[in-house]
Protein backbone atom coordinates (compact mmCIF):
# COMPACT_ATOMS: atom_id res chain seq x y z
CA UNK A 1 0.00 0.00 0.00
CA UNK A 2 1.29 3.49 -0.80
CA UNK A 3 0.55 6.12 1.82
CA UNK A 4 0.42 9.86 1.44
CA UNK A 5 -0.10 12.82 3.77
CA UNK A 6 -1.71 15.92 2.32
CA UNK A 7 -3.62 19.02 3.29
CA UNK A 8 -6.35 18.10 0.82
CA UNK A 9 -7.31 14.92 -1.01
CA UNK A 10 -9.38 15.59 -4.15
CA UNK A 11 -11.36 12.74 -5.69
CA UNK A 12 -11.98 13.20 -9.41
CA UNK A 13 -10.21 15.33 -12.04
CA UNK A 14 -13.14 16.72 -14.02
CA UNK A 15 -14.67 20.18 -14.07
CA UNK A 16 -14.70 20.49 -10.28
CA UNK A 17 -11.79 18.43 -8.98
CA UNK A 18 -9.10 19.56 -11.42
CA UNK A 19 -9.88 23.23 -10.81
CA UNK A 20 -9.85 22.76 -7.07
CA UNK A 21 -6.57 20.80 -7.10
CA UNK A 22 -4.80 23.47 -9.16
CA UNK A 23 -6.09 26.43 -7.17
CA UNK A 24 -5.26 24.78 -3.85
CA UNK A 25 -1.80 23.62 -4.92
CA UNK A 26 -0.94 27.03 -6.33
CA UNK A 27 -2.22 28.53 -3.10
CA UNK A 28 0.35 26.56 -1.13
CA UNK A 29 -1.65 23.51 -0.02
CA UNK A 30 -0.30 20.00 -0.43
CA UNK A 31 -2.75 18.12 -2.63
CA UNK A 32 -3.28 14.53 -3.76
CA UNK A 33 -5.63 14.20 -6.74
CA UNK A 34 -7.14 10.73 -7.25
CA UNK A 35 -8.68 10.05 -10.67
CA UNK A 36 -10.33 6.81 -11.66
CA UNK A 37 -9.68 7.16 -15.40
CA UNK A 38 -6.41 7.43 -17.32
CA UNK A 39 -4.49 10.25 -18.99
CA UNK A 40 -5.38 10.16 -22.69
CA UNK A 41 -2.55 10.93 -25.09
CA UNK A 42 -3.95 13.17 -27.86
CA UNK A 43 -1.79 11.21 -30.31
CA UNK A 44 -4.20 8.33 -29.77
CA UNK A 45 -7.22 10.36 -30.93
CA UNK A 46 -8.28 9.25 -34.40
CA UNK A 47 -11.62 11.06 -35.00
CA UNK A 48 -13.48 7.75 -35.18
CA UNK A 49 -16.74 8.02 -33.19
CA UNK A 50 -17.02 4.33 -32.20
CA UNK A 51 -13.37 3.96 -31.20
CA UNK A 52 -13.33 7.26 -29.34
CA UNK A 53 -16.61 6.47 -27.57
CA UNK A 54 -14.98 3.26 -26.36
CA UNK A 55 -11.83 5.06 -25.25
CA UNK A 56 -12.88 8.42 -23.83
CA UNK A 57 -16.29 7.68 -22.34
CA UNK A 58 -17.41 5.75 -19.34
CA UNK A 59 -19.14 2.59 -20.57
CA UNK A 60 -18.46 3.63 -24.19
CA UNK A 61 -20.94 6.48 -23.77
CA UNK A 62 -23.76 4.04 -23.15
CA UNK A 63 -24.74 4.93 -19.62
CA UNK A 64 -28.52 4.57 -19.70
CA UNK A 65 -31.31 5.89 -17.54
CA UNK A 66 -34.23 3.61 -16.84
CA UNK A 67 -37.67 5.09 -17.32
CA UNK A 68 -39.87 6.47 -20.06
CA UNK A 69 -38.16 6.97 -22.36
CA UNK A 70 -34.78 5.33 -21.66
CA UNK A 71 -32.16 8.04 -22.15
CA UNK A 72 -28.48 7.75 -23.10
CA UNK A 73 -26.34 9.82 -20.74
CA UNK A 74 -22.75 10.07 -22.03
CA UNK A 75 -20.06 10.69 -19.39
CA UNK A 76 -16.36 11.31 -20.02
CA UNK A 77 -13.67 9.20 -18.40
CA UNK A 78 -10.11 10.24 -17.66
CA UNK A 79 -8.14 13.32 -16.65
CA UNK A 80 -10.52 16.10 -17.59
CA UNK A 81 -13.68 14.06 -16.98
CA UNK A 82 -16.54 15.11 -19.21
CA UNK A 83 -14.72 18.35 -20.13
CA UNK A 84 -12.53 16.07 -22.27
CA UNK A 85 -15.46 15.17 -24.52
CA UNK A 86 -17.95 18.00 -24.22
CA UNK A 87 -18.49 20.66 -26.86
CA UNK A 88 -16.72 23.33 -24.88
CA UNK A 89 -19.70 25.62 -24.49
CA UNK A 90 -19.36 28.16 -21.68
CA UNK A 91 -22.31 29.98 -20.13
CA UNK A 92 -22.20 31.67 -16.78
CA UNK A 93 -24.96 30.74 -14.35
CA UNK A 94 -28.00 32.80 -15.33
CA UNK A 95 -28.78 35.49 -12.74
CA UNK A 96 -32.37 34.27 -12.28
CA UNK A 97 -31.00 30.83 -11.35
CA UNK A 98 -28.65 32.33 -8.75
CA UNK A 99 -31.55 34.29 -7.28
CA UNK A 100 -33.55 31.08 -7.03
CA UNK A 101 -30.66 29.33 -5.25
CA UNK A 102 -30.49 32.13 -2.72
CA UNK A 103 -34.24 32.24 -2.13
CA UNK A 104 -35.18 28.57 -2.34
CA UNK A 105 -32.03 26.83 -1.08
CA UNK A 106 -30.70 29.52 1.26
CA UNK A 107 -27.32 29.58 -0.47
CA UNK A 108 -25.11 32.50 0.43
CA UNK A 109 -23.61 33.27 -2.96
CA UNK A 110 -22.01 36.67 -3.09
CA UNK A 111 -22.29 38.00 -6.66
CA UNK A 112 -19.00 39.87 -6.54
CA UNK A 113 -17.05 36.79 -5.41
CA UNK A 114 -18.74 34.58 -7.97
CA UNK A 115 -18.01 37.11 -10.68
CA UNK A 116 -14.32 37.00 -9.82
CA UNK A 117 -14.39 33.19 -9.85
CA UNK A 118 -16.02 33.17 -13.30
CA UNK A 119 -13.46 35.64 -14.61
CA UNK A 120 -10.64 33.51 -13.26
CA UNK A 121 -12.02 30.36 -14.89
CA UNK A 122 -12.69 32.08 -18.22
CA UNK A 123 -9.16 33.43 -18.31
CA UNK A 124 -7.65 30.04 -17.44
CA UNK A 125 -9.63 28.35 -20.21
CA UNK A 126 -9.24 31.07 -22.87
CA UNK A 127 -13.01 31.43 -23.20
CA UNK A 128 -14.05 33.43 -26.25
CA UNK A 129 -16.86 33.64 -28.78
CA UNK A 130 -16.70 31.44 -31.87
CA UNK A 131 -16.19 33.42 -35.09
CA UNK A 132 -18.66 32.96 -37.97
CA UNK A 133 -15.85 31.57 -40.16
CA UNK A 134 -14.95 28.91 -37.61
CA UNK A 135 -18.59 28.14 -36.91
CA UNK A 136 -18.96 26.73 -40.41
CA UNK A 137 -21.89 25.94 -42.69
CA UNK A 138 -24.05 24.17 -40.11
CA UNK A 139 -24.21 27.29 -37.94
CA UNK A 140 -24.85 29.44 -41.02
CA UNK A 141 -28.05 27.49 -41.74
CA UNK A 142 -29.35 27.91 -38.18
CA UNK A 143 -28.39 31.56 -38.16
CA UNK A 144 -30.24 32.23 -41.40
CA UNK A 145 -33.38 30.56 -40.08
CA UNK A 146 -33.25 32.43 -36.77
CA UNK A 147 -32.65 35.77 -38.47
CA UNK A 148 -35.57 35.32 -40.85
CA UNK A 149 -37.84 34.48 -37.95
CA UNK A 150 -36.47 37.25 -35.75
CA UNK A 151 -35.51 34.80 -33.02
CA UNK A 152 -32.81 35.67 -30.51
CA UNK A 153 -29.55 33.89 -31.31
CA UNK A 154 -25.77 34.15 -31.18
CA UNK A 155 -22.43 32.48 -31.45
CA UNK A 156 -21.43 30.48 -28.41
CA UNK A 157 -18.54 31.20 -26.09
CA UNK A 158 -16.16 28.26 -25.79
CA UNK A 159 -13.02 27.24 -23.95
CA UNK A 160 -10.78 26.86 -27.00
CA UNK A 161 -7.49 28.31 -28.14
CA UNK A 162 -6.13 27.90 -31.66
CA UNK A 163 -9.20 25.94 -32.78
CA UNK A 164 -9.26 25.09 -36.49
CA UNK A 165 -12.71 23.51 -36.53
CA UNK A 166 -11.74 19.83 -36.66
CA UNK A 167 -15.38 18.97 -36.00
CA UNK A 168 -14.77 16.23 -33.45
CA UNK A 169 -14.90 17.93 -30.03
CA UNK A 170 -16.88 15.01 -28.64
CA UNK A 171 -14.37 12.45 -29.91
CA UNK A 172 -11.08 13.93 -28.67
CA UNK A 173 -9.74 17.25 -29.95
CA UNK A 174 -6.79 16.37 -32.21
CA UNK A 175 -5.23 19.84 -31.94
CA UNK A 176 -5.61 20.16 -28.15
CA UNK A 177 -7.39 23.40 -28.91
CA UNK A 178 -10.23 22.63 -26.53
CA UNK A 179 -9.01 23.74 -23.14
CA UNK A 180 -10.39 20.87 -21.08
CA UNK A 181 -9.27 20.58 -17.49
CA UNK A 182 -6.95 17.65 -18.28
CA UNK A 183 -4.64 19.95 -20.27
CA UNK A 184 -5.18 23.16 -18.30
CA UNK A 185 -5.81 22.79 -14.60
CA UNK A 186 -4.29 19.32 -14.11
CA UNK A 187 -0.83 20.34 -15.43
CA UNK A 188 -1.06 23.49 -13.30
CA UNK A 189 -1.80 21.38 -10.24
CA UNK A 190 1.10 19.08 -11.01
CA UNK A 191 3.48 21.99 -11.61
CA UNK A 192 2.50 23.40 -8.23
CA UNK A 193 3.41 20.13 -6.52
CA UNK A 194 0.12 18.22 -6.45
CA UNK A 195 0.46 14.46 -6.70
CA UNK A 196 -1.79 13.06 -9.44
CA UNK A 197 -2.78 9.39 -9.21
CA UNK A 198 -4.69 7.96 -12.19
CA UNK A 199 -6.46 4.60 -12.27
CA UNK A 200 -7.49 5.13 -8.65
CA UNK A 201 -10.94 3.92 -7.67
CA UNK A 202 -11.79 5.39 -4.29
CA UNK A 203 -13.54 2.89 -2.05
CA UNK A 204 -13.42 4.44 1.36
CA UNK A 205 -13.72 7.86 2.91
CA UNK A 206 -12.68 7.68 6.52
CA UNK A 207 -14.76 9.71 8.95
CA UNK A 208 -14.42 9.62 12.72
CA UNK A 209 -16.30 11.66 15.30
CA UNK A 210 -17.78 13.93 12.64
CA UNK A 211 -14.41 14.70 11.00
CA UNK A 212 -12.96 13.41 7.78
CA UNK A 213 -9.53 11.78 8.09
CA UNK A 214 -8.70 10.72 4.54
CA UNK A 215 -9.53 8.36 1.70
CA UNK A 216 -8.48 4.97 0.42
CA UNK A 217 -8.38 3.91 -3.23
CA UNK A 218 -7.63 0.81 -5.22
CA UNK A 219 -5.25 1.14 -8.16
CA UNK A 220 -3.74 -1.31 -10.64
CA UNK A 221 -0.66 -1.41 -8.42
CA UNK A 222 -2.44 -1.94 -5.11
CA UNK A 223 -3.95 0.35 -2.51
CA UNK A 224 -3.40 4.07 -2.01
CA UNK A 225 -4.16 5.71 1.31
CA UNK A 226 -4.29 9.47 1.67
CA UNK A 227 -4.39 10.97 5.15
CA UNK A 228 -5.83 14.45 4.88
CA UNK A 229 -7.89 16.74 7.12
CA UNK A 230 -9.81 17.88 4.03
CA UNK A 231 -11.32 15.62 1.40
CA UNK A 232 -13.19 16.95 -1.61
CA UNK A 233 -15.38 14.53 -3.54
CA UNK A 234 -15.68 15.51 -7.22
CA UNK A 235 -16.53 12.21 -8.86
CA UNK A 236 -19.41 13.68 -10.85
CA UNK A 237 -23.18 13.86 -10.42
CA UNK A 238 -23.73 10.16 -11.05
CA UNK A 239 -20.84 8.70 -9.05
CA UNK A 240 -20.44 11.10 -6.12
CA UNK A 241 -23.69 9.99 -4.45
CA UNK A 242 -22.67 6.34 -4.91
CA UNK A 243 -19.37 6.93 -3.12
CA UNK A 244 -20.99 8.88 -0.30
CA UNK A 245 -23.77 6.33 0.08
CA UNK A 246 -21.31 3.42 0.16
CA UNK A 247 -19.58 5.14 3.06
CA UNK A 248 -22.80 5.93 4.89
CA UNK A 249 -22.28 9.66 4.39
CA UNK A 250 -24.83 12.35 3.56
CA UNK A 251 -27.92 10.21 3.92
CA UNK A 252 -29.55 12.06 6.81
CA UNK A 253 -31.54 14.47 4.65
CA UNK A 254 -32.86 11.73 2.39
CA UNK A 255 -31.76 13.86 -0.56
CA UNK A 256 -28.60 11.94 -1.51
CA UNK A 257 -28.97 10.52 -5.02
CA UNK A 258 -32.27 12.33 -5.54
CA UNK A 259 -33.16 15.56 -7.35
CA UNK A 260 -31.34 14.40 -10.48
CA UNK A 261 -31.88 16.99 -13.16
CA UNK A 262 -30.42 16.76 -16.66
CA UNK A 263 -30.81 18.43 -19.99
CA UNK A 264 -32.64 15.82 -22.06
CA UNK A 265 -31.92 16.52 -25.69
CA UNK A 266 -32.58 15.46 -29.23
CA UNK A 267 -31.73 16.78 -32.67
CA UNK A 268 -33.28 17.29 -36.09
CA UNK A 269 -31.70 17.20 -39.54
CA UNK A 270 -32.50 19.28 -42.61
CA UNK A 271 -31.66 18.76 -46.26
CA UNK A 272 -30.37 21.98 -47.78
CA UNK A 273 -29.56 23.18 -51.31
CA UNK A 274 -26.14 24.37 -50.29
CA UNK A 275 -23.16 22.29 -49.28
CA UNK A 276 -23.17 22.39 -45.46
CA UNK A 277 -20.34 19.98 -44.59
CA UNK A 278 -21.55 19.87 -41.01
CA UNK A 279 -18.34 18.39 -39.62
CA UNK A 280 -16.20 21.20 -40.97
CA UNK A 281 -16.20 23.82 -38.27
CA UNK A 282 -17.05 23.90 -34.59
CA UNK A 283 -19.90 21.41 -34.04
CA UNK A 284 -21.47 23.44 -31.23
CA UNK A 285 -20.94 27.04 -32.21
CA UNK A 286 -24.37 28.63 -32.37
CA UNK A 287 -27.43 28.93 -30.17
CA UNK A 288 -31.02 30.13 -30.38
CA UNK A 289 -32.33 31.23 -27.00
CA UNK A 290 -35.62 32.82 -28.07
CA UNK A 291 -37.49 30.19 -26.03
CA UNK A 292 -35.05 29.78 -23.16
CA UNK A 293 -37.67 31.22 -20.80
CA UNK A 294 -39.88 28.22 -21.64
CA UNK A 295 -36.99 25.84 -20.99
CA UNK A 296 -36.24 25.28 -24.68
CA UNK A 297 -32.77 25.94 -26.06
CA UNK A 298 -31.39 25.18 -29.51
CA UNK A 299 -27.66 24.57 -29.85
CA UNK A 300 -25.59 23.44 -32.80
CA UNK A 301 -24.58 19.82 -33.08
CA UNK A 302 -22.78 18.02 -35.89
CA UNK A 303 -20.32 15.26 -36.64
CA UNK A 304 -18.67 12.98 -39.20
CA UNK A 305 -20.74 10.69 -41.44
CA UNK A 306 -20.77 7.72 -39.06
CA UNK A 307 -22.06 9.96 -36.28
CA UNK A 308 -24.72 11.48 -38.55
CA UNK A 309 -25.75 8.05 -39.84
CA UNK A 310 -26.32 6.85 -36.26
CA UNK A 311 -28.62 9.71 -35.39
CA UNK A 312 -30.41 10.35 -38.69
CA UNK A 313 -34.04 9.39 -37.95
CA UNK A 314 -34.76 7.54 -41.19
CA UNK A 315 -34.80 3.91 -42.28
CA UNK A 316 -33.87 1.82 -45.27
CA UNK A 317 -33.60 3.51 -48.65
CA UNK A 318 -34.63 6.91 -47.25
CA UNK A 319 -31.72 6.75 -44.81
CA UNK A 320 -29.29 5.75 -47.58
CA UNK A 321 -30.61 8.51 -49.85
CA UNK A 322 -30.26 11.17 -47.17
CA UNK A 323 -26.76 9.95 -46.35
CA UNK A 324 -25.78 10.23 -50.00
CA UNK A 325 -26.60 13.91 -49.48
CA UNK A 326 -24.57 14.08 -46.25
CA UNK A 327 -22.72 17.15 -47.48
CA UNK A 328 -26.08 18.96 -47.73
CA UNK A 329 -27.36 17.93 -44.30
CA UNK A 330 -27.64 20.43 -41.46
CA UNK A 331 -28.37 19.52 -37.86
CA UNK A 332 -29.58 21.42 -34.80
CA UNK A 333 -29.94 20.19 -31.23
CA UNK A 334 -32.89 20.79 -28.90
CA UNK A 335 -32.08 20.88 -25.20
CA UNK A 336 -34.75 21.05 -22.51
CA UNK A 337 -34.30 22.62 -19.08
CA UNK A 338 -36.12 19.88 -17.23
CA UNK A 339 -38.75 19.87 -14.55
CA UNK A 340 -38.55 16.04 -14.39
CA UNK A 341 -36.42 14.64 -11.59
CA UNK A 342 -34.61 11.33 -11.34
CA UNK A 343 -32.61 9.36 -8.83
CA UNK A 344 -29.26 7.59 -8.70
CA UNK A 345 -28.91 4.43 -6.66
CA UNK A 346 -26.05 2.06 -6.07
CA UNK A 347 -26.20 -1.48 -7.37
CA UNK A 348 -23.58 -4.21 -7.35
CA UNK A 349 -20.76 -2.26 -5.71
CA UNK A 350 -19.55 1.26 -6.19
CA UNK A 351 -19.09 1.58 -9.89
CA UNK A 352 -22.49 0.61 -11.22
CA UNK A 353 -25.23 3.20 -10.89
CA UNK A 354 -28.91 2.59 -11.37
CA UNK A 355 -30.33 5.80 -12.76
CA UNK A 356 -34.08 6.23 -12.91
CA UNK A 357 -35.67 9.16 -14.70
CA UNK A 358 -39.12 9.59 -16.26
CA UNK A 359 -39.89 12.49 -18.54
CA UNK A 360 -42.80 14.42 -17.05
CA UNK A 361 -45.68 15.98 -19.01
CA UNK A 362 -44.18 19.48 -18.90
CA UNK A 363 -40.93 18.30 -20.44
CA UNK A 364 -42.79 16.24 -23.02
CA UNK A 365 -44.63 19.45 -23.92
CA UNK A 366 -41.32 21.27 -24.27
CA UNK A 367 -40.10 18.62 -26.72
CA UNK A 368 -43.31 18.82 -28.75
CA UNK A 369 -43.03 22.59 -28.95
CA UNK A 370 -39.29 22.54 -29.53
CA UNK A 371 -39.50 20.05 -32.41
CA UNK A 372 -42.22 22.11 -34.07
CA UNK A 373 -40.05 25.21 -33.78
CA UNK A 374 -36.90 23.48 -35.08
CA UNK A 375 -38.87 22.50 -38.17
CA UNK A 376 -40.05 26.10 -38.52
CA UNK A 377 -36.46 27.34 -38.22
CA UNK A 378 -35.10 24.93 -40.83
CA UNK A 379 -37.96 25.70 -43.22
CA UNK A 380 -37.26 29.41 -42.85
CA UNK A 381 -33.62 28.69 -43.65
CA UNK A 382 -34.71 27.09 -46.94
CA UNK A 383 -34.69 23.37 -46.09
CA UNK A 384 -36.10 20.98 -48.69
CA UNK A 385 -36.88 18.43 -46.06
CA UNK A 386 -36.72 18.34 -42.28
CA UNK A 387 -36.14 15.04 -40.49
CA UNK A 388 -37.52 15.09 -36.97
CA UNK A 389 -36.50 12.39 -34.48
CA UNK A 390 -39.97 10.84 -34.35
CA UNK A 391 -41.47 7.60 -35.68
CA UNK A 392 -42.68 7.83 -39.31
CA UNK A 393 -45.95 9.75 -39.61
CA UNK A 394 -45.79 11.18 -36.08
CA UNK A 395 -46.26 14.91 -35.76
CA UNK A 396 -44.61 16.70 -32.82
CA UNK A 397 -47.99 17.42 -31.20
CA UNK A 398 -48.79 13.69 -31.14
CA UNK A 399 -45.43 12.55 -29.79
CA UNK A 400 -45.46 10.42 -26.67
CA UNK A 401 -42.50 10.19 -24.32
CA UNK A 402 -41.67 6.73 -25.60
CA UNK A 403 -41.55 8.07 -29.18
CA UNK A 404 -38.63 10.33 -28.36
CA UNK A 405 -35.11 9.06 -28.93
CA UNK A 406 -33.31 11.10 -26.31
CA UNK A 407 -29.83 11.66 -25.05
CA UNK A 408 -29.14 13.76 -21.98
CA UNK A 409 -26.29 15.93 -20.86
CA UNK A 410 -25.31 17.95 -17.81
CA UNK A 411 -26.60 15.80 -14.92
CA UNK A 412 -26.88 17.85 -11.73
CA UNK A 413 -28.28 17.88 -8.22
CA UNK A 414 -27.75 14.47 -6.59
CA UNK A 415 -25.92 15.87 -3.54
CA UNK A 416 -27.56 19.23 -3.68
CA UNK A 417 -26.55 22.26 -1.73
CA UNK A 418 -29.08 23.62 0.72
CA UNK A 419 -28.44 25.67 3.83
CA UNK A 420 -31.00 23.51 5.65
CA UNK A 421 -29.48 20.10 6.58
CA UNK A 422 -32.90 18.49 6.28
CA UNK A 423 -33.17 19.55 2.62
CA UNK A 424 -29.68 19.18 1.22
CA UNK A 425 -26.46 17.19 1.41
CA UNK A 426 -23.96 20.07 1.49
CA UNK A 427 -24.10 23.63 2.82
CA UNK A 428 -23.36 26.97 1.13
CA UNK A 429 -19.63 26.23 1.34
CA UNK A 430 -20.17 22.80 -0.19
CA UNK A 431 -19.28 21.05 3.06
CA UNK A 432 -21.25 17.90 3.80
CA UNK A 433 -23.70 18.74 6.57
CA UNK A 434 -22.39 17.44 9.87
CA UNK A 435 -18.94 16.32 8.66
CA UNK A 436 -16.05 18.67 9.25
CA UNK A 437 -13.58 18.83 6.36
CA UNK A 438 -15.58 16.80 3.81
CA UNK A 439 -16.69 18.78 0.75
CA UNK A 440 -18.28 18.08 -2.61
CA UNK A 441 -17.33 20.04 -5.74
CA UNK A 442 -19.00 18.78 -8.89
CA UNK A 443 -22.35 18.96 -10.64
CA UNK A 444 -24.04 17.03 -7.86
CA UNK A 445 -24.13 20.11 -5.60
CA UNK A 446 -25.91 22.28 -8.20
CA UNK A 447 -29.42 22.41 -6.76
CA UNK A 448 -31.48 23.06 -9.88
CA UNK A 449 -31.40 22.86 -13.64
CA UNK A 450 -29.46 25.74 -15.19
CA UNK A 451 -30.98 25.75 -18.67
CA UNK A 452 -27.47 26.24 -20.03
CA UNK A 453 -24.31 24.12 -20.23
CA UNK A 454 -22.96 23.86 -16.67
CA UNK A 455 -19.20 23.35 -16.95
CA UNK A 456 -18.05 26.79 -15.91
CA UNK A 457 -20.69 27.02 -13.20
CA UNK A 458 -19.11 23.91 -11.67
CA UNK A 459 -15.63 25.36 -12.17
CA UNK A 460 -16.56 28.71 -10.63
CA UNK A 461 -18.09 26.98 -7.61
CA UNK A 462 -14.89 24.89 -7.26
CA UNK A 463 -12.78 28.05 -7.47
CA UNK A 464 -14.92 29.66 -4.80
CA UNK A 465 -14.48 26.59 -2.59
CA UNK A 466 -10.70 26.57 -3.14
CA UNK A 467 -10.37 30.12 -1.87
CA UNK A 468 -12.70 29.39 1.01
CA UNK A 469 -10.40 26.53 2.03
CA UNK A 470 -7.32 28.72 1.52
CA UNK A 471 -9.04 31.33 3.71
CA UNK A 472 -8.37 34.18 1.32
CA UNK A 473 -10.45 36.06 -1.24
CA UNK A 474 -10.51 34.88 -4.84
CA UNK A 475 -8.17 37.24 -6.72
CA UNK A 476 -9.69 39.46 -9.35
Amino acid at each position, binding site marked *: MSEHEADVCVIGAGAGGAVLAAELAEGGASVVLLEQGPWHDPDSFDASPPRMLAKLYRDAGQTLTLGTPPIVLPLGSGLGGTTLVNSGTCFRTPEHVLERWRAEFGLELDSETLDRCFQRVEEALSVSEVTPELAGGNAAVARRGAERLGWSHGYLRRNAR*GCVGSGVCAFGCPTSAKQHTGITYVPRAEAAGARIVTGATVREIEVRAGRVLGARARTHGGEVEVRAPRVVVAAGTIHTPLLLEANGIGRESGQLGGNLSMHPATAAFALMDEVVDMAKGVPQSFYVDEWAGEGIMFEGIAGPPSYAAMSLPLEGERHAEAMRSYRHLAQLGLMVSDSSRGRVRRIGGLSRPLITYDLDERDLGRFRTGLRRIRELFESAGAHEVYLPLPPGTEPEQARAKDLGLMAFHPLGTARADADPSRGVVDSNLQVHGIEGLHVADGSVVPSSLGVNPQITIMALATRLAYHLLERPCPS
Partner: protein
Amino acid sequence: MDEYIAAAPQPQRSGMYAVLALARRPRGAALLSRVRPLAQVGRTLLAMERYEEPVVARSLGWDAEAVIARGRALRRAEGRP
Protein backbone atom coordinates in the same frame (compact mmCIF):
# COMPACT_ATOMS: atom_id res chain seq x y z
CA MET B 1 -17.14 -1.72 -33.81
CA ASP B 2 -15.67 -4.48 -31.67
CA GLU B 3 -13.93 -1.95 -29.43
CA TYR B 4 -17.13 0.04 -29.09
CA ILE B 5 -19.29 -2.91 -28.19
CA ALA B 6 -16.67 -4.52 -25.94
CA ALA B 7 -16.45 -1.30 -23.88
CA ALA B 8 -20.21 -1.22 -23.30
CA PRO B 9 -21.58 -2.37 -19.96
CA GLN B 10 -23.62 -5.48 -19.56
CA PRO B 11 -26.34 -6.21 -20.51
CA GLN B 12 -25.99 -3.79 -23.47
CA ARG B 13 -22.80 -5.53 -24.63
CA SER B 14 -24.35 -8.96 -25.10
CA GLY B 15 -27.50 -7.40 -26.52
CA MET B 16 -25.55 -5.43 -29.13
CA TYR B 17 -23.52 -8.44 -30.24
CA ALA B 18 -26.72 -10.41 -30.70
CA VAL B 19 -28.60 -7.61 -32.46
CA LEU B 20 -25.67 -6.87 -34.78
CA ALA B 21 -25.37 -10.52 -35.73
CA LEU B 22 -29.07 -10.63 -36.57
CA ALA B 23 -29.10 -7.28 -38.37
CA ARG B 24 -26.36 -8.43 -40.75
CA ARG B 25 -28.55 -11.26 -42.09
CA PRO B 26 -31.75 -10.70 -44.08
CA ARG B 27 -33.77 -13.20 -42.07
CA GLY B 28 -32.36 -11.84 -38.84
CA ALA B 29 -33.19 -8.30 -39.88
CA ALA B 30 -36.76 -9.37 -40.68
CA LEU B 31 -37.01 -10.87 -37.22
CA LEU B 32 -35.65 -7.72 -35.61
CA SER B 33 -38.10 -5.53 -37.48
CA ARG B 34 -40.89 -6.95 -35.31
CA VAL B 35 -39.41 -5.23 -32.26
CA ARG B 36 -38.94 -1.54 -33.04
CA PRO B 37 -36.36 -0.63 -30.36
CA LEU B 38 -34.16 -3.59 -31.28
CA ALA B 39 -34.50 -2.86 -34.99
CA GLN B 40 -33.41 0.70 -34.23
CA VAL B 41 -30.31 -0.52 -32.38
CA GLY B 42 -29.47 -2.83 -35.29
CA ARG B 43 -29.84 -0.04 -37.84
CA THR B 44 -27.72 2.30 -35.74
CA LEU B 45 -24.88 -0.20 -35.40
CA LEU B 46 -24.91 -1.11 -39.09
CA ALA B 47 -24.99 2.57 -40.09
CA MET B 48 -22.06 3.38 -37.82
CA GLU B 49 -20.11 0.44 -39.25
CA ARG B 50 -20.83 1.34 -42.87
CA TYR B 51 -20.04 5.06 -42.64
CA GLU B 52 -16.89 4.45 -40.61
CA GLU B 53 -15.36 2.92 -43.75
CA PRO B 54 -12.73 5.46 -44.89
CA VAL B 55 -13.68 5.06 -48.55
CA VAL B 56 -17.35 5.72 -47.84
CA ALA B 57 -16.57 8.65 -45.52
CA ARG B 58 -14.18 10.24 -48.02
CA SER B 59 -16.82 10.01 -50.74
CA LEU B 60 -18.98 12.16 -48.44
CA GLY B 61 -16.28 14.77 -47.94
CA TRP B 62 -14.93 13.55 -44.60
CA ASP B 63 -11.31 12.45 -44.35
CA ALA B 64 -10.54 11.51 -40.76
CA GLU B 65 -6.89 10.82 -41.49
CA ALA B 66 -6.41 14.30 -42.90
CA VAL B 67 -8.18 15.89 -39.92
CA ILE B 68 -5.96 14.00 -37.51
CA ALA B 69 -2.77 14.71 -39.44
CA ARG B 70 -3.54 18.43 -39.50
CA GLY B 71 -4.36 18.40 -35.79
CA ARG B 72 -1.17 16.61 -34.80
CA ALA B 73 0.97 18.86 -36.97
CA LEU B 74 -0.56 21.98 -35.42
CA ARG B 75 -0.18 20.59 -31.94
CA ARG B 76 3.49 19.86 -32.48
CA ALA B 77 4.22 23.11 -34.29
CA GLU B 78 2.71 25.15 -31.46
CA GLY B 79 3.99 22.98 -28.62
CA ARG B 80 0.51 22.20 -27.32
CA PRO B 81 0.00 19.35 -24.84
